[in-house]
């Protein structure tokens, strides 16, 4: 019986081997983009994952945004970028005012002009207690009022209280909502932003005024998330089939055509179709079938990308792009752990991570090393810092020197600290992703040779975050950071006040000098002094080695040859609305 089975499988295997052919494509009315995960919502101030923003930037636009090529802030919906003006009289004394004017052509779907009222409405929606937007709320913390110009409804000034260096960025990059559509009953109309921001006001109103409270519910409802979505962008949501696809349709007579040089207002393809395909193998098969125009292969092994690139049959069908999208990886260490509190151990682990091998093995060379917590393409990056060399001997010497030796002969180094013996066995929390599996396994192999045993724990990222990172019950984990083109604010990730439940300083890094520098970065308005502070911070950081910095990968995109794409460092790495036909 067994032998017959072998025979059968042999037939099946032979069946599966054959040659390949090519197939021409002719439909150019649409661009089909693969989405790996279905967005939960198309409502920018509620949505948080990058899958969602990849989609929403075609439907919603903000007052300003980063130029796809130069990565400088540029106006989108407004005439020109505002300048900060200190206020020295009136109720907002000590604050900063930014005056702006929306372009006269800008109109909503119903033909009404976009005005300062819509801007204020957006900021009010962000601050409504029933709208679940903690992220935006925090970013908009300093925005205290919007002053309308009574003569020109398109002119207004936004007033901020402090001089936090990212305030203008936050104001400009907020997606603007049409108030007539999202608040048809005018529930928020009679309340001004400054009222809403006054302490206790919103919460008490939420408790006693059912109408006011109902705004939050309606705003977060499914209708405003997936069905009737309205923004000022060049596309509108045409169809959303759960788990299948999302179709964006070009708006007729779009006002943005008057500004041909603003990329965010381009609307070249008639339709942009987001095909939701979770499974990589299925997605690659579809790509080969010619059903997809744009696909990111960053999560798949680099061989998939390389094979397509080198494959004869796909020559001429696809173009290959590797934009740098401001992302990098590092291994976070818990600096509060008595073992990892020892800088020698952290440095030793740094010497045990063979980053060059990781880049070769995992990314196939599509990455570059980093030595600091700021993406290398940013101006603030300190490029004077040398690479940490892969050097197990040095690592072992460091450990010996610091008193870590295998005194009980169990294969793992140990040391007595404060009367307690600590073994160098560290838990490494990873997500199921191939990347974290590979990084942890490679580190584990090298560390075990140096007498550090690493226990790899595969766990859902969400759970790791709430059970281990936020409570400090971990030793190591891989983290991926995606930075925006705005100057980085290391405070939230590395300041000692950001340790604990609310903060993102999972590494529990705490250094008085670094704290001071981070505070300076946040508040200084002098560009040069800030750059200087960034540089010094990176040096302090380099010497402390609170994390194992790995590398900044590039995205691997395959795009159909039919198009002349607009590639950018801004995520997701391309501007589908600005693609042109070849």
């Amino acid at each position: 019986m067994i032998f017959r089975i072998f025979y059968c499988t042999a037939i099946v295997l032979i069946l599966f081997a054959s040659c390949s052919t090519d197939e021409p494509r002719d439909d150019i009315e649409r661009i089909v983009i693969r989405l790996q995960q279905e967005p939960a919502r198309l409502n920018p101030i509620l949505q948080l994952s990058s899958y969602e923003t990849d989609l929403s930037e075609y439907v919603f636009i903000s007052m300003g945004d980063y130029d796809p090529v130069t990565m400088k802030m540029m106006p989108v919906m407004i005439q020109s970028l505002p300048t900060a003006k200190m206020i020295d009289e009136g109720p907002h004394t000590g604050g900063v005012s930014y005056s702006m004017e929306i372009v006269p052509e800008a109109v909503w779907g119903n033909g009404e002009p976009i005005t300062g009222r819509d801007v204020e409405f957006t900021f009010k929606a962000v601050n409504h207690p029933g709208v679940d937007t903690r992220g935006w709320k925090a970013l908009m913390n300093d925005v205290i009022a919007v002053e309308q110009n009574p003569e020109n409804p398109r002119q207004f000034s936004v007033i901020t209280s402090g001089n936090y260096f990212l305030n203008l960025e936050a104001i400009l990059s907020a997606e603007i909502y049409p108030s007539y559509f999202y608040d048809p009953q005018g529930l928020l109309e009679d309340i001004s932003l400054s009222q809403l921001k006054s302490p206790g006001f919103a919460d008490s109103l939420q408790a006693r005024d059912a109408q006011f409270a109902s705004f939050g519910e309606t705003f977060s409802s499914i209708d405003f998330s997936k069905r009737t979505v309205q923004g000022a962008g060049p596309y509108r949501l045409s169809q959303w089939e759960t788990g299948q696809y999302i179709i964006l349709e070009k708006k007729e007579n779009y006002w943005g055509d008057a500004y041909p040089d603003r990329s965010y207002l381009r609307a070249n393809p008639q339709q942009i179709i987001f095909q939701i395909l979770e499974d990589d193998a299925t997605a690659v098969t579809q790509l080969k079938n010619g059903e997809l125009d744009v696909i990111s292969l960053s999560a798949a092994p680099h061989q998939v990308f390389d094979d397509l690139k080198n494959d004869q049959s796909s020559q001429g069908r696809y173009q290959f792009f590797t934009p740098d999208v401001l992302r990098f990886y590092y291994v976070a260490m818990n600096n509060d752990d008595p073992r990892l509190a020892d800088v020698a151990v952290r440095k030793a682990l740094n010497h045990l991570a063979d980053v060059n091998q990781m880049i070769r093995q995992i990314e196939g060379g599509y990455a570059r090393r980093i030595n600091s917590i700021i993406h290398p393409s940013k101006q603030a990056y300190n490029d004077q810092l040398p690479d940490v060399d892969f050097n197990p001997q040095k690592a072992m010497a460091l450990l010996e020197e610091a008193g870590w030796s295998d005194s009980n002969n169990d294969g793992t180094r140990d040391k007595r600290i404060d009367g307690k013996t600590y073994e160098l066995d560290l838990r490494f929390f990873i997500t199921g992703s191939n990347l974290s599996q590979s990084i942890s396994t490679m580190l584990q192999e090298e560390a075990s040779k140096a007498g550090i045993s690493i226990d790899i724990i595969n766990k859902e990222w969400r759970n790791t975050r709430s059970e281990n990172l936020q409570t400090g019950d971990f030793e190591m984990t891989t983290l991926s950071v995606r930075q925006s083109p705005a100057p980085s604010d290391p405070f939230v990730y590395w300041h000692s006040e950001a340790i604990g439940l609310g903060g993102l300083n999972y590494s529990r890094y705490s250094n008085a000098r670094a704290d001071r520098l981070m505070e300076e970065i946040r508040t200084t308005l002098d560009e040069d002094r800030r750059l200087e502070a960034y540089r010094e911070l990176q040096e302090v950081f380099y010497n402390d080695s609170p994390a194992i910095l790995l590398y900044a990968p590039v995205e691997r995109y395959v795009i159909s040859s039919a198009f002349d794409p607009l590639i950018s460092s801004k995520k997701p790495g391309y501007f589908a609305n600005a693609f042109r036909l070849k």
Partner: protein
Amino acid sequence: MRQLVLNRLLFLVPTIFIILCVAFMLQQAAPGDEVLSNLRLDGINVNLSQSEYKEAYQRQATLMNRDLPPFYWSVRPHYFPDSLYRIIPKSYRQNLKSLTLQTGDWQRVSRYHETLQKAINTGAQHKDSLGAIYVQLLKLEQSSDIQVIRNIGNRLSNRSVPSSTGTSDTLGQLKAAIDELRVRRRWSTYPVVSWNGARCQFHGWLKGLASGQRSLVDGAPVRMKILAALKWTLTLSLITLIVAGALGLAVAYYQTKNHNSWSDRVSSVIFYLFYAVPLFWLATMAVVFFTTDEYGSWTNLFPSVGLMYYTGEQPFLVQLIENIKQLILPVICLVLHSMAYLTRQVKTSLLQASNAFYTLVARSKGLNKGQVLRRHALPNALLPYITIMTAALPATFTGSLVIEVIFNIPGMGKLMFDSIRNLDWPVTFSILVLVGVVTVLAYLLADLLYVVFYPHMTKELIRK
């Protein structure tokens, strides 16, 4: 017959209730803090102060009922307070629990907790002058290791705090409270039961289930999400069930008729082959080889996976007919994978029946093998067939996750998988109730079919 139906339906409510209790217990037993998970802060540069963060946490906890006791009643050792659940965040509650267990003295622990809260609140106002001490206070809040707490306490007294800030009093009190904490484990205790009544998390969930909740992920009504997934899963699995059921019976009949022949063996081997390859691999191979031209145009038999965007705003039935070709390949995979088990079971009972005395009698009356099988063996061999087919019914509602992932079908398997992983409990609990009801009804259906086909079993069935 009526007795039978009544019996089954009577057990419907307790069954569902037990399932919900089990699900609730599993969910409670999971470590980690769901409120924290639902605060969804990753990916954004947030800049919240501790107090703002605690407010946000409090709001989210109230929203999720997490500031209520879990169940209708709670049991605790006598030296524990009855209001521990009021302390949030969860990690702080765990710390206090651990401290109470270690010291056996809730009075002192709660005094420590209160002075610590006070110290942090006053400390937040004088952050600049306190400097590193404030960070130490935050650290205290997160620790349940008495040694660590003592060390920090000692450091508090050594530091000179500027008296002008008015914090030195509070810090002094905190130091005193820390010094009072002593490790003394209490082994002897007695249980105390407190009744929480309807103000509990479980009751809140039950109410939510009854009134129709919204998904925590996208705000869509749960019913809508489940119906959207169910239409795909039901279509796929009912087609599979019918095809597999019919084919399984036919093949088993054919195999029994030609028992031990060449064709019997080869077909068994082929079905085994499809059973013994993991389903995900079978499906992957099917997608890779039969939906592309890559291996020759003759293998491109089926449409590409997940290409359903040409449907437009048509009614479901039209969409279904349009998309039915999408379902061919997944149906084939599922049917092939289940054939080995199905045919084996039916064939075994068919063989048994054909060797039984009555069939031999029938045979001796001069009926040929096929006639005997059809008229005598088949009716008697239906029992396992009914069991298998009705047992597969609940699975038609849960769907096949593997197939749904590979063929990109937004069905129930994926919905359940995603809901559980996203901690979207309204959706998860509703699915559990749905599947529970369907399971009980499937048992009822099985019983009814038994009664129809085997009237002599009625009595025994009612007893159960």
